């Protein structure tokens, strides 16, 4: 049997041609269009009406070469950890209302410890840790470091998906009208960037051959346009509401909670839950080949050299994953030679000044845990205010003892710019 040849004009009860709005062929496509219009319309109403986190609100639009919309001040009492959200666990971790402020360039705002003075230190890389996901303005790493050293610190951290090249530093210096003397490079343990990131593709070579530097600028503009559009498409209130609705019934009663597979739940000594993504735990417990560690160190040293070219010294802060610190305390096998310790050796061998956050936090974690205090959010993988405070203290101590000066760049000639 083939599909029935439908009547050209479906008859109504009276046998007359029904009005258009009475026909499915008229109604259904308009429902689809209506849905699209509602989705688009909701993208223009304030995101504070919906369960979005402050940084997502600030990220709705963003200028080129900065992570957030400039001059935003978002007061928010909404907080839920990434892991709780991902695993659809009931949220048990709360925090007081926080403020998320961005400066006129679109970076997270850092108030001046020394008003009127130019920024002496710049924090960069480290993405959501550095600009402080889940933290209020006064708790973020650059602010706490600024207070400890009593110098102005500029938070130049970008979003993890933004392409970042040394020329961006030039642009920032130009916009700031000042050149920091030191940069704190925040390296996150899972961050696997290597110099391959910068290796030109066949398209790059062909484009540069034809258009020269204009091709590089054009490509960056296209990349930016794609990123902004993709971000705008992703931040859909209607989508979020639908996901929430579906997750609310995937509660292991009405429907199985299929999201739980990706997040593991540990119980702390005081009985509270600690959540971590399965992938994160697997990564922490997997030994990375030495060559890969070396390549990561090369990448960081390459940034040191690029900054040195610009007269800026660099210190590296290595920030461990939550389970690198707490895994061994929660019965997971400890790495005999953890990744960050290996990376630290490679970096020191290249003459870099390094603060290894794993040594600091692992040393203090048992005592703090006994007091019921953690360095990370329980239901999120980011560091909390206590974690920021401890690592800021370690960085400040290192800088008081010796401040890295811009070093000659022995690798500059060999590596791609």
């Amino acid at each position, binding site marked *: *049997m083939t*599909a*029935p040849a*439908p009547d050209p004009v479906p008859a109504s009860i009276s046998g007359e041609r029904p009005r258009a709005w009475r026909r*499915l062929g008229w109604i*259904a496509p308009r429902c689809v269009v209506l849905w699209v219009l509602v989705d688009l319309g909701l993208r223009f109403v304030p995101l504070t009406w919906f369960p979005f986190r402050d940084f997502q609100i600030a990220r709705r639009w963003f200028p080129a070469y900065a992570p957030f919309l400039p001059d935003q001040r978002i007061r928010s009492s909404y907080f839920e950890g990434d892991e709780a959200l991902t695993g659809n666990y009931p949220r048990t971790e709360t925090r007081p209302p926080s403020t998320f402020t961005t400066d006129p360039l679109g970076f997270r705002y850092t108030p001046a410890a020394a008003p009127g003075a130019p920024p002496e230190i710049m924090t960069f890389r480290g993405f959501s840790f550095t600009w402080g996901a889940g933290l209020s303005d006064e708790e973020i790493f650059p602010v706490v470091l600024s207070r400890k050293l009593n110098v102005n610190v500029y938070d130049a951290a970008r979003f993890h998906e933004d392409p970042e090249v040394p020329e961006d530093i030039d642009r920032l210096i130009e916009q700031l009208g000042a050149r920091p003397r030191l940069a704190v490079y925040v390296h996150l343990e899972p961050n696997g960037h290597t110099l391959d990131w910068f290796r030109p593709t066949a398209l790059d070579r062909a484009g540069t051959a034809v258009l020269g530097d204009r091709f590089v600028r054009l490509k960056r503009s296209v990349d930016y346009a794609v990123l902004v559009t993709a971000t705008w498409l992703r931040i859909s209130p209607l989508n979020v509401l*639908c996901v929430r609705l*579906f997750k609310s019934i995937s509660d292991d009663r009405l*429907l*199985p909670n299929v999201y739980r597979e990706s997040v593991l739940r540990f119980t702390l000594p005081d009985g509270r839950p600690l959540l971590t993504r399965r992938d994160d735990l697997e990564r922490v417990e997997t030994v990375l080949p030495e060559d890969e560690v070396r390549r990561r160190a090369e990448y960081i040293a390459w940034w040191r050299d690029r900054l040195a070219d610009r007269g800026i010294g660099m210190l590296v802060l290595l920030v461990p994953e939550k389970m690198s610190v707490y895994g061994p305390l929660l019965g997971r096998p400890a790495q005999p030679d953890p990744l960050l310790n290996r990376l630290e050796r490679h970096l020191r061998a290249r003459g870099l000044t390094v603060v290894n956050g794993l040594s600091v936090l692992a040393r203090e974690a048992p005592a703090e845990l006994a007091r019921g205090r953690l360095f990370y959010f329980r239901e999120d993988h980011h560091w909390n205010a206590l974690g920021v405070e401890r690592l800021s203290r370690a960085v400040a101590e290192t800088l008081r003892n010796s401040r890295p000066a811009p070093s000659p760049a022995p690798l500059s000639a060999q590596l791609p710019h």
Partner: protein
Amino acid sequence: MLFNSGIFLFAFLPVTYFVFWSLRTKNARYVWLAFTGYVFYGYWNPAFCLLMAFSTLVSYLAGLGFLRWGADPRHRKLLVVVPVTVDLLLLGWFKYVNFGIGIANSVLGWTGAEPLRTLNIILPVGISFYTFHTITYIVDSYRGVIKPTRNFFEFACYVSLFSQLVAGPIVRFRELQEDLDGIDAKDRAEGLDAGWSFFIFGMVQKVLLADTVAAIIDPALKDPAALSSAGAWLSMLGYTYQLYFDFAGYSNMAVGLGLMFGMHIPQNFNSPYKALNPSDFWRRWHISLSRCLRDYLYISLGGNRDGERKTYRNLMITMLLGGLWHGAAWTFVIWGAYHGLLLALYRRFGAGWDRLPTLVQRAGMFFLVIVGWTFFRAETFSHALVLLGRMLVPHAGVSPVGTGLLVAVLAVCAAFAHFGPNTFELRHRWQPAPAWAMAALLIGCIIRIYGGEKSPFLYFQF
């Protein structure tokens, strides 16, 4: 690209639809539908578009060959053997080569020889479907059932028509030729109401019924040994309806989309769970595949023309290969053999079965189908045996999480599958209230699509 995705509903379908109806000439419409078919297919993996293009070109050239040298029997043989071999080699390489290596390794294992390395081959989505489209075209040209087309765009449009491209139905060229030939004379309004009606029915079957059942039974079936007997029955009953509503849903959406573009795609499911016996089941389940297997394999093997023994042999070969068509795994082979056996037994003892009350025949056939799906669903043969053991011998154990909702959804599924009309038995002329209710169901599906995880159709993997 999935029919049940935002990119399809909100971008691909509207653009394809409006451009199609704004074009006036045959060739423009062929080219547009062929192009959109490649976009639809390439959205998943653009590289495999080349494979489809190659298969299309080979079959088209074979068709031209029939037109030119069709009078010469030797040429005709060559024209059918070469392109069909090419198609089967492609299918064999992508779908069965690792299965063959696995079998070879089992044999080598007994002899103590070094095992062969399995190859890193990605199975192109829908290859089984479009390969069958091209093969049926070549064989029908050879048999003189159709006159091959000289228009390359028409043929490319037939092979890559997005509505039937990746999960069927397996539409033969002859079934679409009339629509394709008259593609420039279609009335846009003609199929719109029925098209949307089929599409929404299919969407509801897939998104609201099959996916809800899957959300509950998939976690349960990961560990069949933990299930109680009731849990195992519920899970397999769930899978039985999930598979039907998933695939029938896809087919209905394909039919609906076809109607929106003036194409009449044939029925693929005719209430299969109302079947009275194995023969009846295969006349109702995946009708387009059953017909292909019958017309191009069973009859080619001799059908029932050469006595009882050869008929049984032909039945078994056909069903074994039919099972293997679904996937390169022993579980599919066993499922095919099981149905071959049922068909053979029915052929031998069917008179007795037919004397049973209709209700008993229906219930009995449904039970036999569920047993068959156990092999179809299981990842390994031992998994299937564990599951069957749980179902047939009383065991304590767990029930699927969400059993309450599962029972409710299964009741709805059962009502539709066993007692309700199928979509081809409906007139699709909705008065305003039902039409608005259908639209509300569509919105319900969109909410589910927006809120849930991506859910590919089960038959994509075949």
